């Protein structure tokens, strides 16, 4: 199908505007990371007056960046995988079954998104302490506690979105698979999941980024050894100085793996995974 001219113009204008909007702050970040501290604090210049890569070296020692990075990776990665698994099951149930209490479940889960996060903090901390006293599992100050917290934070949205994507996959496909002898789980695994792949990836990205960037609970639930990146970046702002250039440098460096992952994942957003399946 040939693209019409208005379509083309629309595409070019949209892409141009959004590119500028996206790129300018990133450009500022990149050039700031290559300026000396005095330079950064002074009047803004589009290009550094004294180009320097020192911030990229200093940033590893001002703050234990490497250790924070690893912690973040472990916590966010685990939370994402667990969250995805739980959400897939739950979404399948919500999408494919009409059971008693379905609306109670969805309403409750929905209402958790309406409370300011700050209010959860103290009660959650207390619950963890209680669990520790009752069962002996240490949750405060461990990565495990943080993983559990994050996977739950990501659940509501993940369940809805996945249920929404599943809704878009015709039931006929499930039934076809079940007629062939596999149970509901088989239908899920062989038919629904592959068809919902873009949705799965989008939700996985969301889960990961939510855990990756969360600050409030990480600041309270972690100690020196398992501090995450999101909290750690704030530590470049110290009593004596705020090391802007190092913050920028550190942010860019830790984002590179994430961006690379995006680059690889976006290839999976391919059209027509469900098309033709029923014909």
């Amino acid at each position, binding site marked *: 199908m040939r693209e019409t001219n208005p379509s083309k113009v629309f595409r070019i204008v949209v892409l141009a505007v959004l590119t500028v909007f996206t790129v300018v702050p990133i450009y500022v970040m990149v050039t700031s990371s290559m300026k000396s501290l*005095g330079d950064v604090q002074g009047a803004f210049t589009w290009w550094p007056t004294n180009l320097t890569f020192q911030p990229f070296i200093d940033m590893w020692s001002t703050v*234990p960046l490497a250790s924070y990075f690893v912690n973040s990776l472990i916590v966010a990665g685990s939370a994402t995988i667990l969250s995805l698994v739980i959400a897939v099951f739950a979404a399948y149930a919500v999408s494919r079954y009409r059971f008693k209490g379905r609306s109670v479940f969805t309403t409750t889960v929905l209402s958790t998104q309406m409370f300011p996060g700050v209010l959860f903090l103290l009660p959650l901390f*207390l619950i963890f302490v209680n669990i520790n*006293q009752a069962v002996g599992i240490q949750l405060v100050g461990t990565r495990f506690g943080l993983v559990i917290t994050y996977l739950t934070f990501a659940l509501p949205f993940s369940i809805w979105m996945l249920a929404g994507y599943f809704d878009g996959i015709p039931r006929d496909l499930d039934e076809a698979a079940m007629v062939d002898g596999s149970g509901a789980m088989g239908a899920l695994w062989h038919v629904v999941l592959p068809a919902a792949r873009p949705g799965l990836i989008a939700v996985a990205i969301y889960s990961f980024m939510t855990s990756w960037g969360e600050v409030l609970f990480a600041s309270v639930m972690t100690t*020196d050894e398992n501090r995450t990146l999101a*909290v750690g970046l704030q530590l470049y702002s*110290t*009593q004596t100085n705020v090391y802007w250039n190092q913050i920028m440098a550190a942010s860019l460096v830790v984002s590179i793996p994430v961006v690379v992952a995006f680059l690889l994942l976006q290839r999976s957003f391919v059209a027509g995974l469900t098309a033709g399946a029923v014909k």
Partner: protein
Amino acid sequence: MRKRAIIAGAIAAAVALVAAGCSGSGGSGDSPSGSTITYWASNQGTSLDNDKQVLTPVLNDFTKKTGVKVKLEVIGWNDLQTRIQTAVTSGQGPDVLNIGNTWAASLQATGAFMPFDSAAMKAIGGKDKFVKTALETGGVAGKDVTSVPLYGLAYGLYYNKAMFTAAGVQPPTTWEELVTAAKALTKDGTYGFSLAAGSYTENAHFAFINAAQNGADFFDKDGNPTFTSTGAVDGIKRYLDLMQTDKVVNPANAQYDNGVMAVNDFAKGKVAMILSQNNADSSINANGMKTDAYGVVPFPAPEGGKAVASHVAGINLSIMKNTKNKDAALEFVKYMTSEDTQSTLGKPYATLPVLEGAKANFTDNAEEAATFQKIYNTMSKPLPLVPAEDQFENTVGKAMNDMFSKIATGGTVSASDIKAALQDAQDQVKQSMGG
């Protein structure tokens, strides 16, 4: 009907689950030697790592002397208050911790911190060893304090010697001289003054100091807020007027939400004077200004006003009430407030000693050290020692932020505007005090 019962039951169960974790177990310690105490230190150095490096040899020394091991955690200021809140709420926390001394009365009201009764005071070396005004910050007057001073800080008026000589001005000894000097120095793109006009904590501090110079207090002796006195309004007005009518402060300072930004301006020679606490020295030096290029005088009061140059700033040391290692904790406090430790830590943290008769060593400039010592020991007044102190800082500080903002964006703030804003702040504090 059943549904309601279920919901009520659920809430009760939830509450029980949560509340059971409150007020953790207590218990006194046995012989301190061999035990381990947990210590939460605040960020005083150039980075959390730097704090660890500075403290570790000091702590090792302590372990050698007493056999008590110390588990150290350094916490940034962003998180310290939240961490303390969770520790107080859950009962799970350190044995000893640093607190901003302005929090002392508020924290005392939670009841989670150990009061230093006469036995405890004796165990740490007696209360007379501390600078009197510093010890007063430890809690509400009339009750045993729940914290003791650890590091001392005070505001001083830093001035650029070269700029002053060039303009033919002397360091000011009264407020009026200050304004005149600042005006003479505001020209050709440099300003006489830089203020952290967007930092609500600094604004609250100076509201207090200026009012104190007028003899006015923000709380009366019963702990009721008295924000709208003439002394307070006048004090705030002259501070605001530095930007508004005297025009010796760059309006862009209304964006400065922490003191470091003002210090940077000073170090780069963009302004002639700043008001900063003595630990600004490290920032100033780090930004390229040498120690002999600047001098310090006390923040002056108006002619005839009270000689209050600063509030008693600094860090206090507290022991959690439910600590299992009381004796070890007391030993630790004694050690940290001993003369040797004080002079060891004073230099890297650029703080003043809290001990009566001790000499400041945070800078090689003897004159500066003596000035700050004088300010801290004799010219400083503790911020209101009431549990609502944090609400005072919050409301009054934010009101001043808004007023500076208004001035910077071209509006005007009159004395009646100030009074109205203070009334509003007072109402907020009264309402949240349950009044």
